[in-house]
């Protein structure tokens, strides 16, 4: 089966800025794929190329087996898109926008629309200008989830939603997965990605720096260990893969690359373990590892 999205070596420049610098991205059919990166790293540019709004300068992009620039109408019948910053027409109501976007894709089920409106607690009678940011996002989400498509492209879809609505959103994505649909979820809300995604790609400055399942990626990062030992440890701090060791008598705190965990534990047991806490890496740590030299202010959990 062909990949839902397959992008390799994608380059896009705007004047002097190189927004994409050889980006790779593979999304398999039926998976929920997390697309992670800080603001300005090129997530939206990639999505715009996949939607045929921008033309890539170099590299290849395939979407549902077609060319995103040439096969616009045939491909767009099979996908739905939620932009990060939803802008509505000021004098159209939310319900009108949902119907319009649905009809452009060949019509949607009114029962499904009604169900989604209820779940997202959205009043479809308000005019576009009267909605808050979160409610504008709900309009786009209802339109996307109500349409019968193979691929959902969601660009930071929950940045204006409250925790309750975030919950509803996550359940909707789960349901889409159960129906066998593919989802590309661009986000920097890491808890959301951890909860929903089968695989993730992390990008930085227009390049893919990490791609795989969460388990695979965790393997690449550090585990924190706190231990109370029977006797002071010997040679622990010089072991390969150990970072920031803090040894005070028999108390030990350290971080270790997860693939070097065995060696460290063997050292600890040799000294006699009285108590041990080990914390697996979170996605946040995973993420920050790639952005240590950049401001992490945009990251939220």
């Amino acid at each position, binding site marked *: 089966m062909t990949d839902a999205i397959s992008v390799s070596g994608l380059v896009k420049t705007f004047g002097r800025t190189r927004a994409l610098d050889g980006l790779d991205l593979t999304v398999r059919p039926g998976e929920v794929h997390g697309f992670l990166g800080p603001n300005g790293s090129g997530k939206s540019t990639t999505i715009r190329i996949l939607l045929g709004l921008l033309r890539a300068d170099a590299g290849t992009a395939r979407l549902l087996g077609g060319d995103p620039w040439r096969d616009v109408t045939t491909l*767009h019948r099979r996908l739905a898109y939620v932009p990060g910053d939803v*802008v509505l*027409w000021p004098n159209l109501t939310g319900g*009108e926008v949902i119907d319009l976007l649905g009809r452009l894709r060949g019509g949607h089920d009114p029962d499904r629309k009604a169900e989604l409106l209820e779940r997202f607690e959205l009043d479809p*009678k308000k005019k576009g200008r009267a909605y808050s940011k979160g409610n504008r996002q709900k309009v786009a989400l209802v339109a996307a989830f109500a349409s019968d498509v193979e691929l959902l492209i969601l660009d930071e879809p929950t940045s204006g939603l409250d925790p309750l609505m975030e919950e509803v959103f996550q359940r909707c994505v789960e349901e889409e997965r159960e129906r066998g649909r593919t989802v590309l979820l661009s986000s920097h809300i890491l808890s959301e990605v951890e909860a929903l995604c089968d695989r993730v790609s992390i990008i930085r400055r227009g390049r893919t720096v990490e791609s795989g399942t969460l388990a695979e990626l965790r393997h690449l990062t550090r585990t924190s260990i706190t231990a109370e030992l029977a006797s002071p440890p010997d040679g622990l701090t010089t072991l390969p893969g150990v970072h920031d060791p803090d040894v005070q008598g028999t108390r030990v705190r350290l971080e270790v690359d997860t693939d070097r965990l065995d060696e460290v534990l063997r050292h600890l047991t040799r000294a006699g373990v009285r108590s041990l806490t080990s914390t697996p890496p979170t996605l946040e740590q995973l993420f920050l590892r790639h952005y240590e030299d950049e401001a992490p202010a945009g990251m939220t959990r």
Partner: protein
Amino acid sequence: MRSLAGTGRLLALGLRRSRIMLVVWVYALVAYAASTAYGFKTLYDTPASLRDFVAGINGNGAAVAMYGRIHVAGSIGGITAWRMAATGGLLVGVMSVLLVIRHTRGDEEAGRLELVGAGVVGRRAPLTAGLLVGVVANVALAVVTALALIIIGLPAAGAFATGLAWTIPGLCFTAVAGVAAQVAETAQAARTIALAAVGVAYLLRAVGDAGRVAWLPWVTPIGWAEQVRAFGAERWWVVALGPVAALVLGVAAYALVERRDLGAGLLAARTGPAGATPYLGGPLGLAWRLQRGALLAWLAGFAVYGAAVGGILKGIGDLVKDSSSMRDILARMGGRQDLEDSYAAAMMGIIGMIAAAYAVQVVLRMRAEETAQRLEPLLAAPVRRVRWSIGHLLFAVAGPVLLLAVAGLTAGLADGLRVHDLGGQVPRLLGAALVQAPAAWVAAAIAMLLFGAAPRLAPAAWGVLGVFLLLGQLGPVLRLSQVVMDLSPFTHVPKLPGGEASATPLLALAAVTAAITAAGLTGLRRRDIG
């Protein structure tokens, strides 16, 4: 006054944000006053021609309704002030409303006010700053206008009276906009309310002037502007009516500010249908929803303008028969037929330019949709760019035809009723209006080319239209060479009524339109969106 804290900074921010809009408005209005004074000076250079002009206007009900009655008859200054008071007052009112709404309810609706409101900004500061932007604009306009008229050679006292007369409607509608911004919850609704007030003031004055109801002009700020009697025995106390009325309205606006929450208004925003009608199913249906309101408003405007032009047509010959330079200019603008026909043809040329402005605005709406990121979700659906664009282009093509047809029809009816020849004048003036359409299309096509091929330059379409306007209006006065005049599509339109009707130039303009539009669509297909 802690409730006014931060007003100075907000005012500075507002003036900076609107600096281009302010300069353009002041420049355009000063140019209107100066070119009118200059034109009158060259056209009515003898006491006899001036006397005939005044008698002709005051004897023509439609002209009196449109411009007001001439009270100060014996000088160029007098008729300049007359021409500025009503039509200029209308424009000054519109300027004040747009500025004040932009900086009060507009900022509030966009959420910008919330951003600054969290800083050290008093409760009354945003409204005060918004009103002050209007006051600054009006004072600057009054002073620059007065100086311009003095430079042209009019007496200083009258020049200042003319400039100050504009501040009466200016300040009043500044305050009206301040109230409307508190009453309505959206900038759109606030603008509608305040602009309706401006329109009603102009109409009441028109009825009062034309119907000789002496007290009626005294009810409205635009009527007060006429009562200053600049260049005659100036009534300076009338100038004070503006600030006084503005103060009363301002107090009302402040009272409303105290009684409402940020973001709320007295009139809640209306809700609409929960689902779309079958018509709203594609790009064309959406274009209709987005464009129809403006089209209907423009249609109403064209109907009124056409009727006004038709209404003053009969007897226009008497107004200009003694001014050889005016006759000459009319002949160059409208062709060498009899005077009434060449005046009608010149007026139709102006109506054609306005129709072109509508068409350009329709095309630039597409750019606005793109930059507001409302285009993205449409193109992410199975909608081709060209199909989306054609939805709007239909309005740019059919819109001017419809507008010109309405203006031609009302002009023909108004004139036909006066000369008792409906069957003759309606088709003549209708045809004279409709031949302008292909020239308007060319302007729209140029806008489409810019939007498609160089979207950042799309607003330059207004500049192109401005050049056409200058060539059409100043070309005949400045006696520009035909090669330069030929650059404007409007030069090629047959001079109807009365002139020689020929289909060739119209077909050529239509062909040019099609070629430029096709190039624009090709550019749109190939470029990046956003």
